Protein backbone atom coordinates (compact mmCIF):
# COMPACT_ATOMS: atom_id res chain seq x y z
CA UNK A 1 0.00 0.00 0.00
CA UNK A 2 1.35 3.39 -0.91
CA UNK A 3 0.30 6.86 -1.83
CA UNK A 4 0.99 8.27 -5.23
CA UNK A 5 1.91 11.83 -6.02
CA UNK A 6 2.98 13.94 -8.94
CA UNK A 7 6.51 12.56 -8.86
CA UNK A 8 5.08 9.16 -9.85
CA UNK A 9 3.26 10.56 -12.88
CA UNK A 10 4.32 10.04 -16.49
CA UNK A 11 2.90 10.79 -19.90
CA UNK A 12 4.02 8.99 -23.03
CA UNK A 13 2.92 9.19 -26.64
CA UNK A 14 3.56 6.35 -29.09
CA UNK A 15 5.95 4.89 -26.52
CA UNK A 16 8.04 8.04 -26.06
CA UNK A 17 8.01 9.77 -22.70
CA UNK A 18 7.13 13.46 -22.64
CA UNK A 19 9.50 15.51 -20.46
CA UNK A 20 8.52 18.33 -18.12
CA UNK A 21 4.89 17.38 -17.69
CA UNK A 22 3.36 19.60 -15.03
CA UNK A 23 0.08 17.75 -14.65
CA UNK A 24 -2.33 15.48 -16.42
CA UNK A 25 -5.87 14.38 -15.79
CA UNK A 26 -8.25 11.91 -17.36
CA UNK A 27 -11.98 11.38 -16.99
CA UNK A 28 -14.39 8.75 -18.22
CA UNK A 29 -18.11 9.23 -18.62
CA UNK A 30 -21.01 7.09 -19.78
CA UNK A 31 -24.15 8.55 -21.31
CA UNK A 32 -27.11 6.82 -19.66
CA UNK A 33 -29.96 5.62 -21.87
CA UNK A 34 -33.33 6.04 -20.23
CA UNK A 35 -35.53 2.95 -20.08
CA UNK A 36 -38.31 4.34 -17.92
CA UNK A 37 -41.77 3.17 -19.00
CA UNK A 38 -45.21 4.54 -18.25
CA UNK A 39 -45.92 2.42 -15.17
CA UNK A 40 -42.62 3.23 -13.44
CA UNK A 41 -42.40 5.71 -10.58
CA UNK A 42 -38.59 5.90 -10.67
CA UNK A 43 -36.43 6.55 -13.68
CA UNK A 44 -34.34 3.63 -14.92
CA UNK A 45 -31.31 3.62 -17.18
CA UNK A 46 -28.92 1.32 -18.98
CA UNK A 47 -25.32 2.26 -19.84
CA UNK A 48 -24.97 3.99 -23.17
CA UNK A 49 -21.90 5.23 -24.98
CA UNK A 50 -18.69 5.79 -23.03
CA UNK A 51 -16.27 8.61 -23.69
CA UNK A 52 -12.85 9.16 -22.15
CA UNK A 53 -10.99 12.42 -22.35
CA UNK A 54 -8.07 14.05 -20.67
CA UNK A 55 -5.75 16.99 -20.50
CA UNK A 56 -2.13 17.73 -19.74
CA UNK A 57 0.06 20.74 -19.11
CA UNK A 58 3.66 20.61 -20.25
CA UNK A 59 6.42 23.16 -19.67
CA UNK A 60 7.88 24.35 -22.94
CA UNK A 61 11.40 23.18 -22.17
CA UNK A 62 13.71 22.04 -24.92
CA UNK A 63 10.80 21.27 -27.29
CA UNK A 64 9.29 18.81 -24.82
CA UNK A 65 5.74 19.69 -25.83
CA UNK A 66 6.34 20.05 -29.56
CA UNK A 67 5.48 16.47 -30.67
CA UNK A 68 2.05 16.87 -29.15
CA UNK A 69 1.45 20.46 -30.22
CA UNK A 70 2.37 19.84 -33.82
CA UNK A 71 -0.41 17.29 -34.18
CA UNK A 72 -2.89 20.10 -34.66
CA UNK A 73 -0.77 23.29 -34.79
CA UNK A 74 0.80 22.96 -38.22
CA UNK A 75 0.40 24.10 -41.79
CA UNK A 76 -0.71 20.68 -43.05
CA UNK A 77 -4.21 19.35 -42.53
CA UNK A 78 -4.92 17.20 -39.50
CA UNK A 79 -5.36 13.57 -40.52
CA UNK A 80 -5.74 10.13 -39.01
CA UNK A 81 -1.95 9.96 -38.91
CA UNK A 82 -2.18 12.44 -36.03
CA UNK A 83 -3.94 9.93 -33.78
CA UNK A 84 -1.57 9.07 -30.95
CA UNK A 85 -1.32 6.27 -28.42
CA UNK A 86 -1.19 8.16 -25.14
CA UNK A 87 -0.27 6.44 -21.91
CA UNK A 88 -0.93 8.15 -18.61
CA UNK A 89 1.07 6.46 -15.88
CA UNK A 90 1.62 6.61 -12.16
CA UNK A 91 4.02 4.11 -10.63
CA UNK A 92 3.33 0.75 -12.26
CA UNK A 93 -0.24 1.73 -13.08
CA UNK A 94 -1.49 3.28 -16.29
CA UNK A 95 -4.33 4.10 -18.66
CA UNK A 96 -3.53 3.82 -22.35
CA UNK A 97 -5.40 4.27 -25.59
CA UNK A 98 -5.54 5.87 -29.01
CA UNK A 99 -6.24 9.57 -28.73
CA UNK A 100 -7.10 12.53 -30.88
CA UNK A 101 -5.62 15.80 -29.71
CA UNK A 102 -8.69 18.03 -29.55
CA UNK A 103 -7.07 21.19 -28.24
CA UNK A 104 -3.56 22.58 -27.99
CA UNK A 105 -2.78 25.85 -26.32
CA UNK A 106 0.56 27.56 -26.04
CA UNK A 107 0.87 30.40 -23.56
CA UNK A 108 3.67 32.84 -22.90
CA UNK A 109 3.50 35.50 -20.18
CA UNK A 110 5.88 37.82 -18.42
CA UNK A 111 7.20 36.28 -15.23
CA UNK A 112 6.00 32.78 -16.05
CA UNK A 113 7.59 29.74 -17.60
CA UNK A 114 6.17 29.19 -21.04
CA UNK A 115 3.91 26.17 -21.12
CA UNK A 116 1.57 24.22 -23.36
CA UNK A 117 -1.81 22.76 -22.55
CA UNK A 118 -3.34 19.95 -24.53
CA UNK A 119 -6.66 18.20 -24.37
CA UNK A 120 -7.26 14.82 -25.90
CA UNK A 121 -10.13 12.46 -26.56
CA UNK A 122 -9.83 8.69 -26.56
CA UNK A 123 -11.02 7.04 -29.75
CA UNK A 124 -12.41 3.60 -29.02
CA UNK A 125 -11.92 1.71 -25.80
CA UNK A 126 -8.69 2.02 -23.80
CA UNK A 127 -6.14 -0.53 -24.97
CA UNK A 128 -4.73 -0.95 -21.50
CA UNK A 129 -5.86 -0.14 -17.98
CA UNK A 130 -4.12 -0.98 -14.72
CA UNK A 131 -5.63 0.83 -11.75
Amino acid at each position, binding site marked *: MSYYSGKDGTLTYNGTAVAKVSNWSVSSAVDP*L*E*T*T*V*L*TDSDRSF*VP*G*IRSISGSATIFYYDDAAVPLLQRIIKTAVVSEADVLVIKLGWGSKFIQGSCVITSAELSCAVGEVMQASIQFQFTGAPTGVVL
Partner: protein
Amino acid sequence: MSFEGPTFPTLAPTSRSLVPGDFPGTKFSAQNGAEARVQYGSRRTNTEFSLSFDNISDANAALIHDHYHNCRGTLGIFHVDYKPKEGNPGFHEGISGENTANRFSTIPWGLKYRYAEPPQFSSVKPGRMSVTVKLTGILDT
Protein backbone atom coordinates in the same frame (compact mmCIF):
# COMPACT_ATOMS: atom_id res chain seq x y z
CA MET B 1 -64.16 -9.62 -41.84
CA SER B 2 -60.48 -8.74 -42.04
CA PHE B 3 -57.58 -11.07 -41.43
CA GLU B 4 -56.88 -11.17 -37.68
CA GLY B 5 -53.28 -11.24 -36.50
CA PRO B 6 -51.76 -12.11 -33.12
CA THR B 7 -52.16 -9.90 -30.06
CA PHE B 8 -49.71 -7.00 -29.83
CA PRO B 9 -46.61 -7.81 -27.69
CA THR B 10 -46.89 -7.34 -23.94
CA LEU B 11 -44.54 -4.35 -23.61
CA ALA B 12 -44.97 -1.20 -21.54
CA PRO B 13 -44.29 1.87 -23.70
CA THR B 14 -42.20 4.91 -22.85
CA SER B 15 -44.90 7.24 -24.09
CA ARG B 16 -48.39 6.84 -25.45
CA SER B 17 -50.98 9.07 -27.02
CA LEU B 18 -54.59 8.57 -28.00
CA VAL B 19 -56.77 10.52 -30.41
CA PRO B 20 -60.22 9.03 -29.93
CA GLY B 21 -61.45 9.58 -33.47
CA ASP B 22 -64.93 10.79 -34.32
CA PHE B 23 -68.38 9.65 -35.33
CA PRO B 24 -68.87 9.55 -39.10
CA GLY B 25 -70.87 12.46 -40.40
CA THR B 26 -70.99 15.47 -42.65
CA LYS B 27 -71.07 19.17 -41.92
CA PHE B 28 -73.17 21.57 -44.00
CA SER B 29 -72.24 25.22 -43.70
CA ALA B 30 -74.58 27.91 -44.99
CA GLN B 31 -73.31 31.18 -46.41
CA ASN B 32 -74.57 33.04 -43.37
CA GLY B 33 -72.42 30.82 -41.17
CA ALA B 34 -75.17 28.54 -39.92
CA GLU B 35 -74.03 24.99 -39.57
CA ALA B 36 -75.87 21.68 -39.69
CA ARG B 37 -74.38 18.26 -39.12
CA VAL B 38 -75.64 14.86 -40.11
CA GLN B 39 -74.33 11.85 -38.31
CA TYR B 40 -74.13 8.62 -40.31
CA GLY B 41 -73.16 6.12 -37.67
CA SER B 42 -73.47 5.35 -33.98
CA ARG B 43 -69.91 4.15 -33.52
CA ARG B 44 -66.79 6.25 -33.29
CA THR B 45 -64.01 5.33 -35.68
CA ASN B 46 -60.48 6.21 -36.80
CA THR B 47 -58.98 6.13 -33.34
CA GLU B 48 -55.27 7.01 -33.42
CA PHE B 49 -53.13 5.19 -30.87
CA SER B 50 -49.40 5.95 -30.84
CA LEU B 51 -46.80 4.13 -28.79
CA SER B 52 -43.10 4.76 -28.46
CA PHE B 53 -40.64 2.35 -26.93
CA ASP B 54 -37.31 4.03 -26.17
CA ASN B 55 -34.05 2.15 -25.68
CA ILE B 56 -35.64 -1.28 -25.54
CA SER B 57 -33.65 -4.46 -26.06
CA ASP B 58 -33.17 -5.89 -29.54
CA ALA B 59 -35.28 -8.89 -28.50
CA ASN B 60 -38.25 -6.70 -27.58
CA ALA B 61 -37.86 -4.67 -30.77
CA ALA B 62 -37.89 -7.95 -32.67
CA LEU B 63 -41.23 -8.83 -31.04
CA ILE B 64 -42.77 -5.70 -32.54
CA HIS B 65 -41.14 -6.29 -35.91
CA ASP B 66 -42.37 -9.88 -36.03
CA HIS B 67 -45.84 -8.87 -34.89
CA TYR B 68 -46.05 -6.37 -37.75
CA HIS B 69 -44.95 -9.10 -40.14
CA ASN B 70 -47.39 -11.66 -38.73
CA CYS B 71 -50.21 -9.14 -39.09
CA ARG B 72 -49.25 -8.90 -42.77
CA GLY B 73 -48.25 -5.31 -42.33
CA THR B 74 -51.10 -2.84 -42.33
CA LEU B 75 -53.60 -5.49 -43.50
CA GLY B 76 -54.40 -7.45 -40.36
CA ILE B 77 -56.42 -6.37 -37.36
CA PHE B 78 -55.43 -7.32 -33.82
CA HIS B 79 -55.96 -6.70 -30.14
CA VAL B 80 -53.61 -4.72 -27.90
CA ASP B 81 -52.89 -6.42 -24.60
CA TYR B 82 -53.26 -4.70 -21.23
CA LYS B 83 -49.55 -4.01 -20.70
CA PRO B 84 -49.18 -1.34 -23.45
CA LYS B 85 -52.27 0.40 -22.03
CA GLU B 86 -51.77 0.33 -18.26
CA GLY B 87 -50.53 3.22 -16.16
CA ASN B 88 -53.57 5.52 -16.26
CA PRO B 89 -55.97 3.64 -13.95
CA GLY B 90 -58.51 6.44 -13.89
CA PHE B 91 -58.71 6.33 -17.67
CA HIS B 92 -58.18 2.68 -18.45
CA GLU B 93 -59.19 0.03 -15.93
CA GLY B 94 -59.18 -3.71 -15.69
CA ILE B 95 -57.86 -6.49 -17.84
CA SER B 96 -61.13 -7.25 -19.56
CA GLY B 97 -61.40 -5.39 -22.82
CA GLU B 98 -65.19 -5.39 -22.72
CA ASN B 99 -65.55 -2.69 -20.08
CA THR B 100 -66.13 0.84 -21.36
CA ALA B 101 -63.70 2.04 -18.66
CA ASN B 102 -61.00 0.55 -20.89
CA ARG B 103 -60.69 3.64 -22.98
CA PHE B 104 -57.40 2.67 -24.65
CA SER B 105 -59.11 -0.51 -25.85
CA THR B 106 -61.04 -0.93 -29.03
CA ILE B 107 -63.40 -3.72 -28.01
CA PRO B 108 -65.89 -1.66 -25.93
CA TRP B 109 -66.26 0.68 -28.87
CA GLY B 110 -66.63 -1.99 -31.53
CA LEU B 111 -63.28 -1.22 -33.13
CA LYS B 112 -60.19 -3.20 -34.05
CA TYR B 113 -56.62 -1.96 -34.15
CA ARG B 114 -54.37 -2.24 -37.11
CA TYR B 115 -51.10 -0.59 -38.08
CA ALA B 116 -51.64 2.89 -39.49
CA GLU B 117 -48.15 2.74 -41.00
CA PRO B 118 -45.07 0.53 -40.72
CA PRO B 119 -43.35 0.86 -37.33
CA GLN B 120 -40.03 2.72 -37.24
CA PHE B 121 -36.95 1.13 -35.72
CA SER B 122 -33.97 3.28 -34.73
CA SER B 123 -30.70 1.77 -33.58
CA VAL B 124 -29.36 3.49 -30.46
CA LYS B 125 -26.34 1.36 -29.57
CA PRO B 126 -25.46 -2.32 -29.81
CA GLY B 127 -28.32 -4.19 -28.15
CA ARG B 128 -30.66 -1.20 -27.83
CA MET B 129 -33.28 0.21 -30.19
CA SER B 130 -36.12 2.70 -30.12
CA VAL B 131 -39.39 1.92 -31.84
CA THR B 132 -42.41 4.05 -32.68
CA VAL B 133 -45.74 2.45 -33.53
CA LYS B 134 -48.86 4.12 -34.88
CA LEU B 135 -52.11 2.20 -34.73
CA THR B 136 -55.53 3.09 -35.95
CA GLY B 137 -58.82 1.83 -34.55
CA ILE B 138 -61.18 0.94 -37.37
CA LEU B 139 -64.67 -0.46 -37.65
CA ASP B 140 -64.25 -3.98 -38.93
CA THR B 141 -66.88 -5.04 -41.40
